[in-house]
Structure formats: structure tokens, C-alpha cells
């Protein structure tokens, strides 16, 4: 794994070299927050941010994406025959994704890219996208990546890891794709500052203050956790909005919807949320998760138990803290994870306040 030093004086020049080859995305400051956006001509990513308000998952998993279409005009030979809407193959490059958000992509891979079925839209978006991560020096009080198998300098899901080292960036090249982009940018000064990088890593990891415990989740029986009494207390405040799921870099659930525009039918893949009653509502009127307790429990059981049991890849959470920050009623996954992890039958008798 090659380490390259990028003098900050060469940063803009390199980005200009990348622009003709890649569709560039990066964090942009908007009023009081940062958001990942397509970088317009001459626009540079603003890397002075804690984390973006929304996760950048929509770059590879858009909130709303037209996937199939066909004509409904019966005079056309191929009417009513759905065809895939060919995706655009233009390579794209995301500058400055945080390691937590990048490692989330590897969790999404477990859903969208399996041995049995592959989502071609996901695969295409993943393949055409190169991720330059920005090692995190400014973790927030709600960050807990180090508890969930990640870290502020974590490399999972990245092609290049950038580390801000004052007057330069240290770029750790992690994949072929990353190497190609580095070459295209003309950033080629090899560096031996591994020790510096490791020092910064250690310092950043120490700055993570939130801790969650996940060690016992795997051993607790699904049905016992499912029937735990604490769900009533936790779910009381929940208003069943989709904020946590839409902001989450690892939430992947989606809906499929048809729309008709004049004589064209279009099938879309839209984000969906387990928080919504409609998510599981049967046509008959029956709803297996008809109460907010059931829906809130589904979200946390999925992330912290079902996923753990199914994939043996830790919990389905990268510790970015967005849901903690943005939940309108302060439902805190750290608290719930710890409650679940320490749950035992004795707790079942405890009176609920």
C-alpha cells in the first residue's frame, strides 16, 4: 500500500486534472451544514467539516431512481415490455467521504451484491465510483465508530485514504481504482510518513468518546430480545418518522413504485423505511408490524441482532451518530444497543418506569 504526499498547493491543480475524467462529488458548505454534492466547474470540496448532514449513500443508492420503463402505446411493437434504463457509465469520484460512511458501503454490499442475486444498479454505481476518504480528526460526541469495528482512519470501502497533515495530505492508496485516480490527478510524490499517519490515527481514535457494547448481542436469543420489556419504554417517544433511516448510511430498505407519464410507464426504486406502517401493510388490512413499538423494534433488532446473526459481520451500524443527532425525540441507538447487549432474563422482571 503506497503512501503519497500531496502538497496542498497541488490540491486544486490535481482536482482540475480529475475533472475531465470523473464526475466529482464532495462536501459543500450550505448555510450551517455540509452536504455531499456534485462539484460544479471550479468548485472545490470543503474539507473542513465534522460530518455531512445526510450520508452520501445516495451517490450510489439514490433516494429515487427510475430503473425500468416501457411504452404503453399499443401501436408500438414493444408496448408493455419493460426495459432497463441504461445507467450512465461515466466514472465518478467522491472526495472527502468519512471512513464511517465508506465502511457503510461494505455493509450495503452484503445486501445488494450477494452470491445469489445482484442489484445491477448498485453494482454499476459501485463500480464506476472511486472513493477518496478523509480521515476524521474531528469526531463528535455522538461518534462511536471505534466500538463497531471501524475507526476515524478506517480504510474499509475506500480506494484512497486522505489524512490531513497540515501543509499536505497524506494519501494512502488502497486499490487499483485509487491508484488510477491518483495518477490522473498527478499526485505521485511517494512518502515515508507512515509513522506520522499512525500517530495521527492513534490521536484521532483517542478522541472518540462514545462507547457501545456489542459483544453479547450474538449470544442472546432472538425471541427473548424481541420480547424484552424495554421496547415499550424506548418506543414511547418515537413518532415513526423516517429521519433515522433516511440519514443512516447503512439503511438499505427500498420500495418499488410505478408511475405513468403520458404514454410511458416507469418503475422506480425509492428509499423506504421500516418506521412507516405502509412498509409492511398487507392488502387485506393486516399489518404484521402495525404498532410503533413493533416498527421501532424492527429497526433496532435488524441492525443489532438479525444482521449480526445473519452475516456475522458485526452490527449494521457504523457509529456515525447521525440518527442520535437528528432524531426529533432523542431516541439514541447507543443507549438501545447497550440495553440489548446487557439484556438478560432477570431484566424481564424489572418494573418499567
Amino acid at each position, binding site marked *: 500500500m503506497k503512501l503519497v504526499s500531496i502538497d496542498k498547493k497541488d490540491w486544486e491543480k490535481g482536482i482540475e486534472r480529475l475533472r475531465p475524467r470523473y464526475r466529482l*462529488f464532495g462536501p459543500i458548505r450550505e448555510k450551517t451544514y455540509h452536504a455531499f454534492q*456534485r462539484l460544479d466547474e471550479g468548485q472545490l470540496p470543503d474539507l473542513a467539516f465534522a460530518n455531512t448532514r445526510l450520508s452520501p449513500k*445516495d*451517490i450510489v443508492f*439514490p*433516494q*429515487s*431512481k*427510475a430503473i425500468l420503463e416501457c411504452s404503453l402505446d399499443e401501436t408500438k411493437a414493444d408496448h408493455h415490455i419493460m426495459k432497463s434504463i441504461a*445507467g*450512465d457509465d461515466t466514472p*465518478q469520484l467522491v472526495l472527502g467521504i468519512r471512513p464511517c460512511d465508506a465502511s457503510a458501503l461494505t455493509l450495503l454490499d452484503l445486501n445488494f451484491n450477494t452470491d445469489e442475486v445482484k442489484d445491477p444498479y448498485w453494482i454499476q454505481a459501485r463500480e464506476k465510483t472511486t472513493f477518496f476518504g478523509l480521515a476524521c480528526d474531528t469526531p463528535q460526541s455522538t461518534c462511536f465508530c471505534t466500538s463497531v469495528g471501524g475507526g476515524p482512519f478506517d480504510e474499509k470501502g475506500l480506494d484512497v485514504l486522505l489524512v490531513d497533515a497540515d501543509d499536505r495530505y497524506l494519501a494512502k492508496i488502497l486499490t487499483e481504482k485509487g491508484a488510477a485516480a491518483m495518477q490522473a490527478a498527478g499526485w505521485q510524490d511517494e512518502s515515508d510518513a507512515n509513522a506520522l499517519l499512525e500517530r495521527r490515527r492513534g490521536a484521532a481514535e483517542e478522541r472518540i468518546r462514545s462507547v457501545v457494547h456489542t459483544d453479547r448481542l450474538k449470544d442472546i436469543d432472538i425471541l427473548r430480545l424481541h420480547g424484552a420489556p424495554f421496547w415499550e419504554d424506548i418506543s414511547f417517544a418515537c413518532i415513526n418518522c423516517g429521519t433515522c433511516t433516511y440519514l443512516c448510511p447503512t439503511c438499505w430498505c427500498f420500495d418499488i413504485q410505478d*408511475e405513468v*407519464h*403520458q404514454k*410511458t410507464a*416507469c418503475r*422506480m426504486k425509492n428509499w423506504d423505511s421500516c418506521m412507516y406502517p405502509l412498509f409492511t401493510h398487507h392488502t387485506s388490512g393486516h399489518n404484521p408490524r402495525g404498532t410503533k413499538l413493533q416498527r421501532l423494534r424492527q429497526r433496532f433488532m435488524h441492525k443489532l441482532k438479525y444482521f449480526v446473526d445473519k452475516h456475522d459481520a458485526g452490527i449494521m451500524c457504523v457509529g456515525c451518530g447521525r440518527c442520535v443527532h437528528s432524531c426529533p425525540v432523542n431516541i439514541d441507538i447507543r443507549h438501545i444497543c447497550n440495553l440489548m447487549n446487557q439484556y438478560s432474563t432477570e431484566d424481564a422482571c424489572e418494573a418499567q418506569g
Partner: protein
Amino acid sequence: MTHMGIEPDRMHFSWISSAEATKFVVVAKEVTEKVRALGPNKHFIKTEARGAQHV
């Protein structure tokens, strides 16, 4: 509706009794002319499935 930016002349309310044929004709003509003057509506029209930010 006008508060959100629909042109005021596109909106019209009238009480017309079933016996007021003349008023109906007058109002219908007036509304038609006003809407024609505004041209085709640009708002609340979906032409294709948009919304995909990054194709």
C-alpha cells in the same frame, strides 16, 4: 393556492345557480380568457420520473 405561487387568475370561485345560465356563460368566458392569457400551466405538472439526483 395563490400563496404558493399559482397565478391568481388561474383560480376562480363562483356561485352559479342552475337557473343562472347567462351568468354561467359570462363566467366561463371570462375564466377562459384569463387562463388563456396566462398560457399553459407550468406548475404541478410532472413530465417524467425525476428526482434521481445522481444518474
